[in-house]
């Protein structure tokens, strides 16, 4: 159906190796391959099946026309194609295959296709490529098979079929195993999207290079898991679907699998494999360098959590409540370990349930088990895309693993609508250096009540419009800030807390956002401390000099990264401060949908003011086409594009996050250093090293380290603080984190 975007793109197909793994514990009638020798068995199985195996001998996958329609497989998605057959998966999770002529060859497997990630990249010419990560697995032993009515084949056949798969990739020993390592292949493949012509060339090294590693992996996967548990997922692969119609699957992933994973009992579970393919995608960069490239709606929250744990650990605050807090936060939280320096490779394992993952060193992020794969994949693909500046991150759709069938809208579940993380993370991140007590809040509220007439006038009758957090509703929601409401009271109380600042328009947005996630008192603490941070307070004082230098820095950043846009804006007469004031002072909560804005908040709490600039650049990038297309030719048009229309355009937190890290990556370090010096120069505040839970600690540390370290802080959450901090605290911090991790891990076991 039209709802299946893949089909639109899948006109022509190149496939480099999605392969199916027979499980040892596959249904008894199957008689799966013996451990250690799945290739042979698979080859035999494939031969028995016919069409597919013949093409495997030379390990080359060739283009095949994907039929627009397959009988019995409505709404299918192409998984892989090779010379003689294609694989497709239906929304129900049935894997079908069909021959070159488009004849359906039947169902290979029923009801257990898994798609856990979809990523759409767009190059600057607007051509799109979708990257999707697909696994095909058997249901767990007790699971029920769900053979839909459309399935015309017997279960027995499906087993045979799925067994045939592995023959494909492992049997691609084109002799180039040593000469062409998977990463090289990936490099070539990575450049593929520009021209269809290049695709043919990229194909063969891909298949060949992955061969050796795939063999290894196949062998491992074929082994009986120590726990006696069957591997649940038998095939992994990623598919790239081009706008122009080519479809690529990426075998490199499998070589990555082999390089790393499967040490654990049921290592076939996808965690390690995706982890490893991350390193493969990163092109000779181990995963360590991938950190911070995380995309996805929750990534910023994770990074925040990660930073907090580091800070706690560094400050030797072994907060006992933290593990349980995080556990409640993310369910069976998993530590995702990322290696600290590029020379380290990550090796780890995921236990049988996929609920815990440990690695020898690294700092931690907390991921719920269901999403660990997706997150890892996000990391890797983002890193991959990062390497190619021509590609723009457009959209990402992550689904949970462990679900039967294709899950499309997993993202909805992952959106930050509930704000469960934020109500814990934000207060922690903002901290309470002001030591505001509930009593103080009460006192100020009372003062405000008593003296309502004078001061309240400014805060009263303020109406704020914020868009509804759950995007599905999409409509506007107003938070009435009339003086009786929480928001109004909070702001009034603040005017008594800081009479020198008082109420400044824009604060109401901060208060409203905080109140979306927090109860009044924590929100008040958050507001006071947030407004106490150098950059926010500096902004709210609205000293012309401070505004000017910020605008100038932004102008320079913009001119460097988007000269055309900068020119259009300048010609229209729009000076950066005209829109920056609103963006910065409300921390983007006025101009953006709240779920998008809260991602920026996360990052702002992580990295400080630099995030605001990068977010601004990201918004310009998102609006680039409109601005250049003539909408920005006059002042009002320009202002409209960057004003009320922004909400429609920048409604995807993932895209913005991606653009943001891109902007940060491209920014000249000296400008970023200048931003930090502006931030730090405000009120002559010198950062206290090692303070925990304070705004922008990473930025502070990076600033202290000087320009070279400066560029690292946004793109890599841990990097800023780690680079800036002295070695001993780092060591201590690591020790503390790993102890913390151990304690959490031991709880699960």
């Amino acid at each position, binding site marked *: 159906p039209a709802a299946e975007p893949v089909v639109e793109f899948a006109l022509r197909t190149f496939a480099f190796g999605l392969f199916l793994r027979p499980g040892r514990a596959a249904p008894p009638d199957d008689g799966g391959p013996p451990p250690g020798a799945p290739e042979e068995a698979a080859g035999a199985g494939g031969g028995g099946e016919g069409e597919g195996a013949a093409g495997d001998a030379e390990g080359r996958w060739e283009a095949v026309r994907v039929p627009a329609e397959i009988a019995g497989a409505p709404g299918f998605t192409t998984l892989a194609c090779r010379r003689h057959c294609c694989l497709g998966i239906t929304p129900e999770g049935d894997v079908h295959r069909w021959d070159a002529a488009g004849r359906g060859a039947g169902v290979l497997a029923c009801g257990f296709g898994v798609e856990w990630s979809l990523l759409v990249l767009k190059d600057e010419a607007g051509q799109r490529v979708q990257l999707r990560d697909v696994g095909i697995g058997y249901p767990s032993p007790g699971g029920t098979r769900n053979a839909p009515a459309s399935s015309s084949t017997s279960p027995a056949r499906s087993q045979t079929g799925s067994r045939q798969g592995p023959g494909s990739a492992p049997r691609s020993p084109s002799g180039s195993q040593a000469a062409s390592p998977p990463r090289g292949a990936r490099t070539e493949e990575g450049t593929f999207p520009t021209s269809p012509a290049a695709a043919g060339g990229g194909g063969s090294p891909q298949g060949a290079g992955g061969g050796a590693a795939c063999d290894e992996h196949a062998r491992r996967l074929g082994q009986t898991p120590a726990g006696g548990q069957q591997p649940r997922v038998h095939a992994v692969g990623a598919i790239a679907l081009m706008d122009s119609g080519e479809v690529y699957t990426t075998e490199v992933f499998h070589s990555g699998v082999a390089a790393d994973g499967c040490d654990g009992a049921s290592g076939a579970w996808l965690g390690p494999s995706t982890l490893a393919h991350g390193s493969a995608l990163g092109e000779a960069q181990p995963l360590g360098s991938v950190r911070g490239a995380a995309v996805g709606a929750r990534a910023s929250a994770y990074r925040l959590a990660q930073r907090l744990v580091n800070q706690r650990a560094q400050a030797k605050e072994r907060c006992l409540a933290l593990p349980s807090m995080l556990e409640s936060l993310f369910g069976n939280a998993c530590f995702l370990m990322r290696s600290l320096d590029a020379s380290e490779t990550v090796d780890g394992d995921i236990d049988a349930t996929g609920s815990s993952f440990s690695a020898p060193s690294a700092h931690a992020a907390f991921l719920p088990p269901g999403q660990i794969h997706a997150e890892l994949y996000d990391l890797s693909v983002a890193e991959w895309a990062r390497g190619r500046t021509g590609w723009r991150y457009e959209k990402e759709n992550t689904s949970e693993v462990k679900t039967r069938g294709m899950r499309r809208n997993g993202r909805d579940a992952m959106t930050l609508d509930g704000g469960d993380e934020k109500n814990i993370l934000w207060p922690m991140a903002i901290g309470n250096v002001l030591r505001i007590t509930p009593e103080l809040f009460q006192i100020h509220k009372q003062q405000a009540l008593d003296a309502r007439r004078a001061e309240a006038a400014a805060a009263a009758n303020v*109406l704020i419009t914020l868009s509804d957090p759950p995007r599905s509703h999409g409509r506007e929601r107003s938070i009435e800030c009339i003086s009786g409401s929480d928001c109004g009271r909070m702001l009034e109380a603040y005017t008594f807390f800081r009479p020198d600042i008082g109420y400044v*328009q824009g604060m*109401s947005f901060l208060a409203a956002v905080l109140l979306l996630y927090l109860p009044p008192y924590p929100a008040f603490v958050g507001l006071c401390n947030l407004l106490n941070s150098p950059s926010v307070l500096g902004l709210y004082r609205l000293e012309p000099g401070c505004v000017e230098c910020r605008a100038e820095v932004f102008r320079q950043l913009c001119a460097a990264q988007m000269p055309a846009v900068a020119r259009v804006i300048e010609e229209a*007469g729009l000076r950066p401060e*005209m829109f920056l004031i609103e963006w910065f002072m409300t921390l983007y909560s006025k101009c953006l949908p709240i779920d998008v804005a809260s991602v920026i908040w996360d990052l702002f709490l992580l990295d400080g003011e630099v995030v605001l600039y990068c977010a601004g650049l990201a918004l310009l990038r998102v609006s680039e086409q409109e601005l250049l297309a003539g909408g920005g030719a*006059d002042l009002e048009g320009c202002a409209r594009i960057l004003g009320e229309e922004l909400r429609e355009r920048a409604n995807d937190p993932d895209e913005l996050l991606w653009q943001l890290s891109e902007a940060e990556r491209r920014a000249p370090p000296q400008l970023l250093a200048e931003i930090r010096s502006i931030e730090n120069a405000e009120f002559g505040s010198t950062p206290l090293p090692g303070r925990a839970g304070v705004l922008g600690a990473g930025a502070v540390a990076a600033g202290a380290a000087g320009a070279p370290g400066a560029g690292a802080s946004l793109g890599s959450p841990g990097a800023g603080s780690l680079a800036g901090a002295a070695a001993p605290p780092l060591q201590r911090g690591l020790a503390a984190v790993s102890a913390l991790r151990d304690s959490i891990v031991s709880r699960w076991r």
Partner: protein
Amino acid sequence: MASEKEKDQYDYLFKFIIIGDAGAGKSCLLHQFIENRYKKGSSHTIGVEFGSKIIHVGGRNIKLQIWDTAGQERYRSVTRSYYRGAAGALIVYDITNRDSYNHLVNWLQDARTLARADTSIITVGNKCDMKDKRAVTFLEASRCAQENDILFLETSALTGEGVEDVFIKVARVILNKIEDGLIDPNTMVSGTHTGSQRIGSDSGGEAMSSKTCSC
């Protein structure tokens, strides 16, 4: 917007600035003028917002480029830089709020010193639909306007009463000044804006330049 088609066709471009105390209804006034609708639940202006509309006055199409500023005192340091080159200034106060009226003189001073010397200024008493809460009489305000040699009107951004008149009135005054040769339209929008580029693309540009030659 309705003016989409005629967007490119105007003879003059006037920059207007709307100033006045916070909560006087500046943004609502602008919204009512441009959209002919009351803006419910409008939020604070932070910094500056823009609007534009082409009106037909004295046989000419005039594009008004309106800068709607934040009214709060603390923003004044920022908004001061937006006055430059404004041909018209609307000082809005709230007829139910005596304070906002009292601050009129400050705003007037700002407008006189920071905008063009020949800026046409109008005082707008907004919220005239709230008659029972009126704190500033029409007579008092109009006398004050007379003393300061500025225009005066009362409006209601809620009902739309008088809103269009305000803009047309100021535009007409400016137009008269141009036709009397008191204002050189080439300097109408100074510095930051290059709206004249667009004027040049059609007959309006010629009209303008010929006008300039004649005066």
